[in-house]
């Protein structure tokens, strides 16, 4: 590029030499990005291939040998789903995740509306408390809540109650924060006009704020859905019965039993990934928005 620094070329660096220089200057970029793409793709592809290989092959040769002798089977998925109970665990993941996404969406958007558009004493202080609660780790709740649930005799730890409530509560600070910051950007005139026309707060929330905030609510919904679906720790603590545990817990149990049965573990790992990957590739735009907004959590 320095060769181009003489006055005649500077205004228009589109000569042949300029193009060659740029190409030469860029090829390291392509090489480095190519290596990065490989490092990020190959580990996952290796496990995906392994999940479809007969376990005898898996024990004998590396997954990369499928390039020369491809041999695939669905046995691993069959075995992990039926004999190892991943089918039930998949349903459990759904039973845990759906309410633990809808509940915080509802509760957080209501609270966010009040913080954005209804005046009440100490409103700013309340919002700052929410901001502070963003940083409270789930761990501080574990012992009081588990002890409390046990003593309450409600069986919440062995039905889905505890895991729903805990996920909902710990999702709220982020949800309220995100949605309140979105709601206050809605046009003030619109909401004031509705008030003058006699609309109630409930009416304004339902007919104006929620419909106009679909992108933000969707971004938060996807973020929360993936958060709960992918979670292991909260499920370990709050879902204390085998029959209700999600796939993440089930796979760690498989790992304890079959530490080197890679074809089985690979199938289990991919079953967890299927739903998030579908969500990711179909709703990428909302997903990235949610993530960008999530950078305060």
């Amino acid at each position, binding site marked *: *590029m*320095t060769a181009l*620094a003489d006055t005649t070329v500077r205004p228009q660096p589109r000569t042949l030499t300029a193009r060659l220089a740029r190409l030469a200057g*860029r090829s390291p*970029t392509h090489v480095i*990005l190519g290596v*990065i793409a490989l490092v*990020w793709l190959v*580990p996952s592809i*290796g*496990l995906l291939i392994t999940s479809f290989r007969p376990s005898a092959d898996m024990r004998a040769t*590396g997954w*990369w040998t499928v390039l020369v002798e491809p041999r695939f089977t669905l046995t691993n998925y069959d075995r992990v789903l039926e004999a190892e109970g991943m089918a039930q665990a998949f349903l459990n993941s759904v039973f845990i995740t759906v309410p633990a996404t809808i509940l915080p969406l509802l509760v*957080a958007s*209501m*609270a966010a509306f*009040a*913080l954005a558009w*209804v005046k*009440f004493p100490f409103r700013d202080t309340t919002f*700052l408390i*929410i*901001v*502070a609660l963003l*940083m*409270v*780790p*789930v*761990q*501080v*709740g*574990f*012992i*009081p*809540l*588990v*002890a409390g649930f046990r003593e309450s005799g409600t069986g919440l730890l062995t039905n889905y109650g505890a895991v729903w*409530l805990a996920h909902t*509560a710990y999702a*709220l600070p982020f949800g*309220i924060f995100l949605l309140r910051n979105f709601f206050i950007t809605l046009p003030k005139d619109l909401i004031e006009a509705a008030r*003058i026309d*006699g609309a109630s707060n409930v009416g304004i929330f339902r007919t104006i704020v929620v419909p106009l905030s679909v992108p933000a609510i969707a971004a938060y919904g996807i973020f929360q859905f993936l958060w709960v679906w992918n*979670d*292991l720790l909260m499920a*370990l*603590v709050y879902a204390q019965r085998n029959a209700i545990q999600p796939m993440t817990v089930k*796979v*760690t149990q498989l790992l304890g039993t079959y530490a*080197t049965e890679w074809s089985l*573990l*690979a199938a289990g*790992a991919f079953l*967890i990934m299927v739903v*998030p*990957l579908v969500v990711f590739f179909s709703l990428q735009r909302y*997903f*990235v928005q949610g*993530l960008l907004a999530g*950078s305060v959590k």
Partner: protein
Amino acid sequence: MAVATPPAAAAPQPRKAAGGAFSWSVPLFLGPAALLLLGFLIVPTIYSLFLSFNRGRGGEFSNWVGFDNWVRLFTQDPDFLRLGFPPSGALWNNILWIVFYVSLTVFLGLLIAVMATRVRYEAAIKAIVFVPQAIAATSLAIIWRFVYSPDDETGLLNAVLGIGNVGPLSLLGNPDTVNWALIAVGIWGSVGFATVILSAAIKGISTEVLEASRVDGATETQIFWRIIVPMVSLPISVVAVTLVVGVIKLFDLIFVMTDGGPGTASRVIAFNMYQEAFPQGQFGYGATIAIVMLLLLVPIMIFNIRRFRATAVQQ
């Protein structure tokens, strides 16, 4: 708003709407959130703080022990912190994570973001590095346990090293290498996050500035360190803070990849908290570690409150 208000007749209605009178809708809208936050975050936090002064073995909270848990945690628990050379323990491992994982994730994220802007397949490369963000840490851990497998007929890494007659190595089985192997996986999982956020920031730098410095003879390395890095320093700090918070809460990856081992070599604070509280049943000690986690997050809490106090009052 007051400008648009007609005088006399309509006056009471907008005044109420503007917040003069108490509205019953406030408890309706805030009630559920307030109850959940009080019951599940605020009260349990205070209760955990009390329990950190209790033995609390197996959920029996009758034995108040003063500062025993705290003294034990910082002076007699080598799994939590062992000073010496080199230091070890969960807290030390978290420090290693913060220093190496955070800095390398930010650096690689920035590098990929900058390089990606110059190629036509920018969207594809960003999507590729971003995918681990969508994956459960449990799956990510299995992907990498498989890559690190000490058997060179199974593990990709040892197969590659085998070509150069190195190994086979058991990176996860050796206390000297396990934390570095885990940090590498952490970086692999988080670079996409840094790339996407920093890429958006880089797009905001005017091309004129970059072109002008190129014309003035600046090398690409100089442009990277002297123009791009300073101009995106705010998003860099946001990414770094987010990653630090992630390190303090780090659990799933360690639990699935090494279960804190070999021995206790790869434990982190959140792992110790779970381990002491649940399998061991030491509720008082577990509560103490939970409060330590909270205390580590307090500076970030204060930082956030300062950052958002302005916006809260503005409205």
